[in-house]
């Protein structure tokens, strides 16, 4: 399937187990569905996909409004769990905003106020659908500067100082080390014999992905952390001669020199956090 084109209006089908659940629930009074919906799926409760189907069925039945509300609340509880897994790194208020956005969107789809195909997808693979909506909500917030970061950048400008990379950025606090010179290295493409580059490249290659993951939380600037994740864990090159290759420079819209500085800063912070143990 990986090389197939997605057909126009691709429809999604429910798993046989979900169909069986729905067929078993429908002959029973809707009020009996609520207890199953409030039981986690891992403990024999109703699957989220079946809940989506039943919510969609009840949406235009005014007499079943109470059950609709109970099922919708139970479904939103499942949505919140997915959101909390895929919207990390935010404070409580922002995480709740994301949960609210995703919950509203998913319920809108369930009650027919949106794409029928997207609603069908939720009946086929609920957690994947909610994960996608959550990542999209996270993505939107990463692109929008936080008010306090914008204010900090403006205050610097008013004082006649130059804002540094990360000021007003997506969740990134200004980092005084951001503007340092080129220290990093690209283990995939660099061949220069710069001692600093060689040091950073050697350090990175000596660290296992597990070690990098363990120390990532100590990188202060989210963009630095993202650069390390993309470069060292997911294999993104910093630069590439092929214009069709996605690179960190293109992604962040900054020079390779800047990216290497970010990565070097990140590794310095990770090294410090580990007390020089590495």
């Amino acid at each position, binding site marked *: 399937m990986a090389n197939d084109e997605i057909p126009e209006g691709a429809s999604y089908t429910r798993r046989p187990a979900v169909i069986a659940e729905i067929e078993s629930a429908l002959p029973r009074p809707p009020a009996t569905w609520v207890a199953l919906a409030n039981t986690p799926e891992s403990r024999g409760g109703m699957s989220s996909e079946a809940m989506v189907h039943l919510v969609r069925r009840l949406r235009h039945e005014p007499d079943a409004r109470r059950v609709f509300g109970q099922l919708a609340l139970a479904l939103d509880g499942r949505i919140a769990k997915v959101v909390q897994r895929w919207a990390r790194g935010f404070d409580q208020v922002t995480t709740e905003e994301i949960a609210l956005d995703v919950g509203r969107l998913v319920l809108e789809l369930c009650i027919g106020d949106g794409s029928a195909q997207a609603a069908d997808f939720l009946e086929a693979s609920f957690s994947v659908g909610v994960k996608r909506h959550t990542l999209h909500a996270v993505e939107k917030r990463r692109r929008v500067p936080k008010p306090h970061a914008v204010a900090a950048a403006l205050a610097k400008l008013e004082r006649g100082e130059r804002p540094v990379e990360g000021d007003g950025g997506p969740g990134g606090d200004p980092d005084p080390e951001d503007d340092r010179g080129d220290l990093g290295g690209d283990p995939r493409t660099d061949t220069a014999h710069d001692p600093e580059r060689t040091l950073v490249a050697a350090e990175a290659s000596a660290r296992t992905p597990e070690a990098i*993951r363990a120390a990532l939380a100590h990188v202060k600037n989210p963009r630095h952390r993202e650069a390390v994740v993309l470069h060292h864990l997911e294999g993104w090159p910093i630069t590439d001669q092929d214009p069709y290759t996605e690179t960190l420079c293109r992604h962040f819209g900054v020079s390779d020199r800047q990216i290497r500085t970010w990565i070097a800063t990140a590794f310095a912070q990770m090294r410090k956090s580990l007390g020089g143990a590495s």
Partner: protein
Amino acid sequence: VTKPVSIADVLDRILLEEPTPTHAALQRWIARYPEHREALASFFATWAVQEEAPDEGVVIDEARVGAAVLEHALAILDRPAPRLSEIARTAGLSDAELGARCDLDAGLVTLLDRRLVRLASIPARLLARLGEALDRGVEDVRRALDGPPLAEAVRQGGAAFANAGVPVGAPLPPIALEFADVVRASALPEATKARWLAGG
């Protein structure tokens, strides 16, 4: 005209097929959907960062969020069903484009939009085609076409009522026009008319 594959469909497929957001996977999907390059790169980066993000133990007030979400859903259910032209606009289609996709002329789309055609007389195949064109379920299409004629039909739909023998200014009839009648009176090609009159 082939409808382009939406980025939402591509992302759903990616999450089903790719276990992790590697650069190699990103390049594969960009090669398949170069028109979505920017969105794909941004999505993969977000996914990668979240994949590696530690659980910082942030706890949200699920009850409060749930109540707000439910309130929003009930507000949508309580509002009147959107009319056909509103759903079409949401789907990025003009009335003319919707008509072209469903073998209807502009006049027929207008009559349907203003709820002047009796719902039970509309062929099931047309409801299905409208749903497909609008990416909505048939039930949503039925709700859009159901109900009393819209108020502006009194002002703008005079001709349609006059053709149906309703005097201008008279109270709107509780049952509107028959689909077969409006097809016969339409500007559709004869072959298309014949198809609709033969049961759609």
